């Protein structure tokens, strides 16, 4: 399968990417690792006529200590997030989940910024960034703005990014030794999650769901129950509240909602047991 024909241009900087996006409008797509976009282009589900390659923009792949958070460049690859000692230490949930994306070959190409920008409810990392209360930094014609993860995911493959904005950084609060868990239920090792759960404990417990609706979802009712002192079992009973998952070859709506309750219960039990091997 070969993508439909397009023209290709390399952005020299984030600002250059913004200018190119402004110039080409809806016809253009950014490409970094291309591991969300190229499969769609090969199936001709996406047919951009201009591809703006941001992979060579310097200084957008990094993990930096920002004090109470980690600042991670938008072009940082899953493999580099997975193996970064700072991530493993300060936000182990993110390091672990990055290592669950696809397979090693995919993780050598795919980027954190790309995964978030794609806005796929079945992706692992959007749920993690939601659960820990992360912030997405977007550069546009008017400069940079910060978008809370809660406001970032809008609908299926749709985010709050304007057509002429590019993700430059993702800020992830340190979880300071709090318990965490990532549950990914799938039929085959490299598959997307049929349902997934990212959970972190501590002072600001967060629980988010993979593939339980048209966008990555915060399990708000579960979090409320936790804040009110509910046990993992009782809180998990609310895991499917307000969800609207799709039915497909792998699972019916009812089965996904059942899975969500089971996986959230497991995740919260692990979180309650504190940090450690998972």
């Amino acid at each position, binding site marked *: 399968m070969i993508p439909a024909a397009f023209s*290709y241009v390399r952005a020299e900087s984030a600002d250059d990417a913004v200018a*190119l996006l402004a110039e080409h409008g809806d016809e253009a797509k950014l490409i970094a690792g291309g*591991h969300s976009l190229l499969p769609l282009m*090969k199936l001709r589900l996406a047919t951009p006529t*201009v591809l703006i390659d941001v992979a060579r923009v310097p200084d957008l792949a990094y993990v930096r200590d920002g004090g109470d958070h980690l600042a991670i460049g938008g072009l940082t690859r899953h493999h580099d997030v997975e193996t970064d000692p700072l991530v493993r230490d300060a936000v182990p949930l993110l390091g672990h989940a990055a290592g669950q994306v696809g397979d090693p070959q*995919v993780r050598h190409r795919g980027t954190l910024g790309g995964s978030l920008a794609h806005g796929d409810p079945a992706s692992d990392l959007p749920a993690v960034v939601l659960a820990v209360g992360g912030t997405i930094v977007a550069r546009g014609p008017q400069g940079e703005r910060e978008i809370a993860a809660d406001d970032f995911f809008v609908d299926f493959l749709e985010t709050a990014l304007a057509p002429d904005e590019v993700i430059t950084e993702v800020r992830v609060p340190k979880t300071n030794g709090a318990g965490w868990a990532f549950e990914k239920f799938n039929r085959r090792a490299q598959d997307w999650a049929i349902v997934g759960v990212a959970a972190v404990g501590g002072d600001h417990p967060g629980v988010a769901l993979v593939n339980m609706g048209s966008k990555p979802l915060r399990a708000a009712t579960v979090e409320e129950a936790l804040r009110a002192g509910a046990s993992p079992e009782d809180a998990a009973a609310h895991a499917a509240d307000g969800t609207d998952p799709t039915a497909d070859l792998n699972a019916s709506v009812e089965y996904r909602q059942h899975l969500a309750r089971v996986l959230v219960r497991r995740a919260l039990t692990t979180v309650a047991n504190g940090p450690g091997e998972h």
Partner: protein
Amino acid sequence: MPREQSRLDVEIAVNGTSTRNSVEARTLLVHYLREVVGLTGTNIGCDTTSCGACTVLLDGESVKSCTVLAVQADGHEVTTIEGLADGDTLHPMQEAFREHHGLQCGYCTPGMVMASVSLAMEQGALSEAEVREGLEGNLCRCTGYQNIVAAVMAGSAAMSEVAGVSANAGPGGGAK
């Protein structure tokens, strides 16, 4: 003149030899390798980033060449299955696949070997669990994986030994 182009000149070092060609922007790396450079050892299996048959090394790391554009590899180094052996001497991972018969039909083998070389370069000698986890992106429909796992464990151990020997064999001393 607009900067965006539908056809570009790319220069890609393939197995240590520079290749320079004009390609359509949409040309996939696997097609560049097979049809432009003429190296057909890299197979196309699923063509959907799943099976791993098309795995090559890009700057020393495993990637699925059906999901990389040739223009993305421009200016970089690619290693294919043809680039592993040293003349008639097989690479330790290839030798291990032969020794342990880590194949049946052989279609997935080039990708299996390249993914395994990348894993071993990153993690050293691999345990059975590390091999099974690390090869999650490579499918084999014949073997049931048992001999592949044995081969990769042996091949990664052999690669570590070679790396250890050369690391110890500094000037004026080291293992003989």
